[in-house]
């Protein structure tokens, strides 16, 4: 009895995945000690509002907190905030903290997330911003309030959202993208081009195929220098060139780390070590390994890893993690939702003037779907994505979901796909 209650689960990383894991540990009946270690001094907070409501000023700091403070005492979790884990010793079942302390664990859950990737041209000039933490979001917000000329480097999701929010705040905004269209990597060129047009419609200048050579300025940023010799003047530069998993502290731990902590299909990195969220890479049943940088994955994987952790303590069967990933993004007041995996076979269907559905397929089978302002259609497609339904079934579902359907005309012949009429 006592041995059981003395068991200790340590969760490293106090954000979406870590907090979800702690809740699942208690939901799942874990009665031992739970310690949540987080490098940031703030109470655990949420990131999606940092580029949306908080940046725009619609929300204050209180509103981005993940849970009310009282929730953590309810959960009976010991918070160690403002403390970083610096190393892990798997054989000793202990982590070291930057305050000199060593913490032993019976089970460890790694949820250290990701940090912005910094391209080589970034220098510490005033006016150059990143956006991952609450502090960075507040700093960027006060800079944007001065209505500066804004240049966003990288038209991924975060870059695109920041551009939209800054534009909404009345700033002059230019987005520089190295690829041929925004969000091309995640969604394919045709869809990226379509979404990129949302920016132009709202007065954001999008420059694609732009290779940044460097930042111009002495102490304070003045412009972004492009490889083709042109310069884009800027008072504020936001670097949004993606993130890399926060695994530096795991060096020498004996875990397999390669663009994320490598886990088996049970979210297990080693016999007593689990990982979840942006930091975790896991093996799918096909043998291919994946890593997902989205909020709902952090929630679901955090919970899943916690449940398997509990099962391992009781010698019960652990369940494989096989999600259908999902994310959303808000840009210029429009709602983008995506479920599954994208592919090069993208078919764009119009529900009406403004709402679209994109079907992604592999060998005529549905592997993913995206909607613009049509969450209900996506909800109907989600089970089809999960079972990789024939594309024809997906088309029929879309046909049943919306009223008038027309093909979307694509400019510049960018779309590689014929536009099919449904219904």
């Amino acid at each position, binding site marked *: 009895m006592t041995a059981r209650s003395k068991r200790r689960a340590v969760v490293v990383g106090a954000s979406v995945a870590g907090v*979800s894991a702690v809740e699942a540990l208690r939901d799942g009946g874990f009665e031992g000690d739970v310690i949540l270690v987080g490098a940031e001094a703030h109470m655990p907070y*949420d990131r*999606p*509002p940092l580029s949306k*409501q908080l940046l725009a000023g619609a929300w204050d700091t209180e509103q981005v907190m993940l*849970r009310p403070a009282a929730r953590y005492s309810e959960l009976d979790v010991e918070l160690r905030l403002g403390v970083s884990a610096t190393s892990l010793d798997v054989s000793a079942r202990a982590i070291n903290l930057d305050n000199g302390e060593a913490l032993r664990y019976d089970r460890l859950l790694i949820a250290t997330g990701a940090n912005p990737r910094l391209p080589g041209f970034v220098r510490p000039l005033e006016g150059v911003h990143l956006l991952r933490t609450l502090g960075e979001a507040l700093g960027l917000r006060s800079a944007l309030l001065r209505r500066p000329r804004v240049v966003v480097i990288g038209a991924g999701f975060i870059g695109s959202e920041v551009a939209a929010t800054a534009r909404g705040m009345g700033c002059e905004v230019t987005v520089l993208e190295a690829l041929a269209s925004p969000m091309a990597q995640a969604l394919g060129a045709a869809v990226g081009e379509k979404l990129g047009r949302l920016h132009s419609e709202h007065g954001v200048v999008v420059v694609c195929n732009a290779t940044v050579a460097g930042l111009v300025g002495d102490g304070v940023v003045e412009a972004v220098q492009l490889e083709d010799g042109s310069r884009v003047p800027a008072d504020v530069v936001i670097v949004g060139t993606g993130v890399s998993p926060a695994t530096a502290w795991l060096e020498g731990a004996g875990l397999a780390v390669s663009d994320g902590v490598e886990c088996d299909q049970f979210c297990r990195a080693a016999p007593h070590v689990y990982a979840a969220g942006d930091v975790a890479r896991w093996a799918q049943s096909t043998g291919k390994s994946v890593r997902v940088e989205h*909020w*709902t994955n952090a*929630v*679901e994987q955090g*919970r899943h890893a916690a449940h398997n952790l509990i099962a391992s303590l009781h010698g019960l069967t652990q369940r494989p993690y096989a999600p259908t990933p*999902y994310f*959303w993004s*808000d840009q210029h007041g429009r*709602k983008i*939702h995506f*479920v599954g995996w994208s592919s090069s076979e993208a078919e764009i269907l119009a529900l009406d003037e403004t709402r679209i559905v994109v079907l992604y397929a592999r060998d005529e089978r549905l592997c993913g779907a995206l909607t613009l302002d049509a*969450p*209900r259609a*996506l*909800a*109907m497609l*989600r089970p089809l994505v999960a079972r990789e339904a024939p594309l024809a079934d997906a088309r029929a579902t879309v046909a049943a979901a919306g009223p008038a359907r027309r093909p979307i005309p694509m400019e510049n012949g960018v779309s590689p796909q014929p536009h099919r009429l449904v219904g």
Partner: protein
Amino acid sequence: MRVRADQRKCQAYANCILAAPDVFDLDDASGKVVVLEETPTDERRAAVQEAVRNCPTQAITVDAETRHVA
């Protein structure tokens, strides 16, 4: 189980619809969440619980008081 949604907290992310389309919708006028079925049947329980977890603003709550013993 009884489902409640707090419209003041709702930010219209629509994650709840994705999890449980039979139980949640967005109101066309306000853009906020509406509960289509306040006392969903037990087979919707898992879907509703997913909606509760995946609502980024914790706008959805479920009362356990009427929990059925399956």
